[in-house]
């Protein structure tokens, strides 16, 4: 508890201190809008998108932003539903804080690490354009970008950022201590995620040859590596592996989990659709098509695979299959044909089921929601799939450059997450006591039950 206060102090302190310098510059931002609007009209005569087109583009990007936002609710409900009732409050709390932390840290530094412009410190690898949000000259007009204003740009990217941390949350659920988890998330989302993003979308060293349309690697596998390291370093939940045999620890609310997956699917309309970075009709609608076909194919493939392997069709696998298809298509949604999208989704759906079983049975790593299988395994698959399925004429995204990108991100993230988790482990500790775990983190960390009054019978 004391530590949470500490953390909170740090966050808020940082907020206040940095924000002073950070946000200073654009104080007059909105009040300049009118002036700039006039400018824009003037500019409209010159080449460049018309004000109308700019406005449509920006509307689409704002829609995409709120769709990505709602993914946080999707993650929250999916993860909650797939863990036990006694940890529900804790998971909901984490997943409410993460978007808040994500947005604020992205404003403080993440955005300017991810998009360093020409302020590279280590060329193509690490740059930092300074703390805070500074409305650039013309940042509210198409002079900034044909597709969106500076503010929209930040918000859309900021909503992405927090997803990386949320992915980790699922893999460490049920035993991680709240404060160190929040510390991990804050640092991971403020530093690790934007660095990787800068390599590709920020114009860094892999941006020429690597193709990751909306982040199979940059978002999902970044989160997935964190999930993997977290799950390994924390160890399994008590009762998961007993005398060498794998025990099921069933999720407590499959309705909640299903809501989560549908919301994530919905969010992907913005995650991928918004990554076109404009409302271009053909571009966006094509991406939505491949995205949806892959999701559908993932569901079918995971259901079939689960029926074969597990004898009965497993709802949670069908749900994972949907996400697997979506993660899989994310890297190449713009450069693979609809048929290829179906194939990518089908393979992702098979892969995710086998991976869940493999992680459980062979690796004996306890990943309650399948975050590693969905985001890391299918994130890698999707990235490599670009090399296999990209359409003729697409220049970047050869299999080799995809592999290089995967490895670069993987090495960095695994190391970063591993060191960070270990550092936390050997300082403040990352795992709750066995007793707290058995009694549930809701009581242990929050003194509050998620389902007050309900008779719940859990022996695990």
């Amino acid at each position: 508890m004391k530590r949470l206060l500490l953390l909170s102090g740090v966050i808020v302190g940082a907020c206040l201190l940095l924000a002073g310098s950070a946000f200073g510059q654009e104080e007059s931002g909105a009040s300049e809008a009118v002036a700039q609007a006039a400018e824009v009209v003037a500019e409209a005569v010159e080449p460049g998108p018309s004000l109308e087109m700019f406005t449509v583009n920006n509307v689409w990007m704002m829609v995409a932003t709120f769709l990505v936002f709602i993914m946080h609710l999707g993650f929250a409900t999916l993860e909650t539903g797939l863990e036990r009732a006694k940890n529900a409050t804790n998971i909901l709390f984490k997943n409410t804080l993460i978007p808040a932390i994500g947005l604020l840290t992205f404003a403080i530094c993440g955005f300017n690490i991810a998009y360093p412009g020409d302020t590279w410190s280590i060329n193509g690898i690490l740059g930092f354009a300074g703390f805070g949000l500074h409305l650039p000259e013309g940042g509210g007009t198409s002079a900034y970008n044909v597709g969106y204003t500076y503010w929209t740009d930040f918000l859309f990217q900021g909503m992405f950022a927090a997803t990386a941390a949320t992915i980790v949350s699922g893999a460490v659920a049920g035993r991680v201590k709240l404060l160190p988890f929040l510390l991990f998330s804050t640092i991971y989302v403020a530093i690790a995620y934007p660095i990787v993003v800068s390599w590709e979308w920020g114009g860094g060293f892999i941006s020429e040859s690597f193709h990751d349309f909306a982040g199979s690697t940059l978002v999902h596998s970044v989160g997935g590596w964190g999930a993997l390291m977290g799950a390994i370093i924390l160890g399994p939940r008590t009762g998961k592996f007993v005398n060498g045999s794998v025990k099921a620890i069933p999720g407590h609310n499959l309705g909640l989990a299903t809501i989560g997956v549908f919301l994530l699917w919905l969010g992907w309309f913005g995650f991928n659709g918004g990554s076109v970075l404009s409302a271009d009709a053909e571009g966006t609608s094509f991406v939505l098509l491949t995205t949806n076909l892959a999701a559908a194919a993932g569901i079918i493939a995971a259901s079939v695979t689960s029926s074969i392997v597990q004898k009965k069709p497993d709802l949670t696998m069908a749900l994972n299959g949907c996400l697997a298809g979506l993660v899989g298509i994310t890297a190449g949604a713009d450069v693979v044909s609809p048929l290829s999208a179906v194939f990518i989704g089908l393979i992702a759906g098979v892969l995710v089921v086998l991976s869940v079983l493999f992680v459980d049975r062979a690796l004996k790593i306890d990943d309650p929601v399948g975050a590693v299988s969905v985001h890391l395994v299918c994130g890698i698959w999707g990235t490599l799939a670009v090399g296999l399925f990209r359409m003729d004429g697409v220049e970047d995204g050869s299999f080799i450059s995809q592999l290089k990108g995967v490895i670069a991100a993987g090495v960095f993230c695994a190391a970063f997450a591993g060191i960070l988790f270990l550092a936390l482990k050997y300082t403040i500790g990352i795992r709750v006591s066995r007793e707290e775990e058995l009694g549930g983190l809701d009581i242990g960390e929050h003194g509050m039950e998620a389902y007050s009054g309900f008779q719940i019978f859990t022996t695990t």
Partner: protein
Amino acid sequence: MKLIIAYIQPEKLNDVKQALYNKQVFKLSVTNAMGCGQQKGFHETYRGADIEVNLLKKVRLEIAVNEDFVQPTIDAIIAGARTNKIGDGKIFVISLDQCIRIRTGETGNEAIG
């Protein structure tokens, strides 16, 4: 006075209640319980890991009756609950030392009904 405890299949509760009513037994208490008996459990799997479910859902009845109602009550429970399949359940009979109606403070045989 006896306390009769019975474990039955949940879906037979309505039938048992009906049978008890027919025998003029109107008072009873019900809890939901899980039972482990001759009836084999079933296998659930969850995300590929096996769960051997051997605690099956049952309903537990508790009925306090005077001596002369013991047999009719047992008969009624059997009439309502029997399907001749494994898992039909059990009836246990215990001696009751005392019974008190909270509302009136009545005790013994008067309080029971």
